[in-house]
């Protein structure tokens, strides 16, 4: 999906506005004044068959997360439902290297997986009208970062002090589909320090290249 997305972008086919990769489909937006569905089905179909592309180089981000109670309003609930202690929930969540499947819902909001089976829980029955920016959440077999304040129904188990979406950046989102993410547990004190540094523009999120 991601490699097809990249090939479509690179091909710059006339009339193709942009494409949006998701878990198992790719949406191609096009201008019917310039091209047609029939022409694109053919052109993109040929790209699907072209399997000769180089493997993607993955980026692995290390995102600091504080799992302390004041940053994790649903931790007690998640702990109860999973049968794990809050410490074990945090440990378990931070032990997985996640894959960014897609970005959607909010600008920069990454759908990442897969979470460990013991943390697979449904969304909250009563979604919150306000989830703060930076909240780290789990629902079903996925985990995410609320990049902006918004309503939301996922279970909040922590928070990151860093910004992960800023329209002034190029590109505006920290994470892109295909990236890897590791969460690094931090204390509440470190949260404050990193937030201050991040807001002053003095914090760089650790990112390394990994073999595909």
């Amino acid at each position: 999906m991601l490699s097809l997305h990249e090939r479509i972008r690179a091909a710059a086919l006339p009339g193709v506005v942009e494409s949006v990769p998701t878990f198992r489909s790719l949406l191609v937006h096009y201008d019917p004044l310039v091209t047609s569905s029939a022409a694109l089905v053919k052109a993109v179909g040929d790209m699907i068959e072209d399997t000769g592309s180089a493997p993607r180089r993955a980026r692995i981000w290390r995102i600091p997360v504080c799992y302390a109670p004041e940053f994790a309003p649903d931790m007690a609930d998640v702990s109860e439902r999973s049968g794990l202690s809050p410490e074990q929930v945090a440990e378990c969540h931070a032990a997985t290297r996640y894959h960014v499947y897609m970005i959607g819902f909010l600008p920069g909001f990454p759908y990442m997986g897969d979470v460990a089976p013991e943390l697979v829980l449904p969304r909250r029955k009563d979604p919150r009208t306000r989830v703060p920016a930076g909240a780290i959440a789990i629902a079903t077999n996925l985990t995410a970062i609320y990049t902006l304040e918004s309503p939301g129904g996922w279970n909040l188990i922590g928070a990151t002090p860093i910004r992960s979406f800023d329209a002034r950046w190029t590109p505006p989102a920290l994470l892109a589909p295909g990236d890897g993410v590791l969460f690094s547990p931090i204390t509440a004190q470190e949260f404050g320090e990193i937030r201050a540094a991040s807001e002053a523009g003095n914090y760089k999120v650790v990112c390394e290249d990994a073999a595909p």
Partner: protein
Amino acid sequence: MTAFLKIQEPGIHSTIQDLGRFGYQDLGVPVSGALDATSFRLANALAGNDEKMAAIEILLQGPTIEVCAETVSIALAGTSTPIEVLGETPRLVPPWQSLMLRRGEVFRIGPVRESVGCYLAIEGGFDLEPILGSLSTYVRAGLGGFNGGRLAQGDELPLRQDSVPERTEVRLAKWPDLAPRERLRVVLGPQLGDFKEDSVETFLNAAYRVSPQADRMGFRLDGPPLSHAGDFNIVSDGIATGAIQVPGSGQPIVLLADRQTTGGYPKIATIISADLPAAGRLKPGDPVRFIAVEVKQAEAIRRKDEEEIMAMIAGIVPARESGNLDLGSLYGSNLVSGVVSSDE
């Protein structure tokens, strides 16, 4: 001297929009842009602008604005509401034509008629920095436009030009029919299989109405509910503007300019691009019916629609002196019932 428009009263929901923020949907950034792109383009054409230049989108009730520039040329399109120029000798200027105003003049746009919104273009446009390539305002994330939000009292919108050349005012000889379409044309799918078979029939036969739950993101339809064949959650996929998604309640939601880029409800159909401006004009209470067309037809309809828009622009003619308009009849009509949802 800096040139700007000063917002004395902002109206209900006035934002700066252009034709949309493209190229970032894979990062979750909604397209936004004018709900009624046709009227938006015509407003720009009348103001002597490139059709993509950002203009003010006015929903439901217009703003009161003071001209703080030597001269400006403005045009209002997408409604039958006139521009009311205030002052010692107030006058009404019809929409669909250009209007030159001088420093200190104050004008007001009243209740928006025949559509949920209309467009106020200004020659030369606004001196604002595009965000991710666009001046469209996406209020939910505070992106674009003027400070990322709705216009507020006291805002000073900077202009690119301090004056405009004197010239004959122009008007459109023909403009779009703003009355709600008898039927909006849709392409069925892509998740047709997620609905019970008789739901497609229900959808195409139903007389829906736009519910009060309506904003720039989209509107819910009141009418017969649709039944899912199984679960009403799908694996999230991409959304096109005009997509009609059906959540668990069975009440369809038509998605418009501020729609999210992806979604997890099945979509029974998508409004064809030629009919998006008509869908974007609908206000709470308006009737909505659908008729299915094939993709090929939808593309042909869009090409024909573009020819008609180009013909309207080519048909811009010198404006006649406008006679006195009857203020009483203009303001006798009620404000549209229902209000755009304010939970943004």
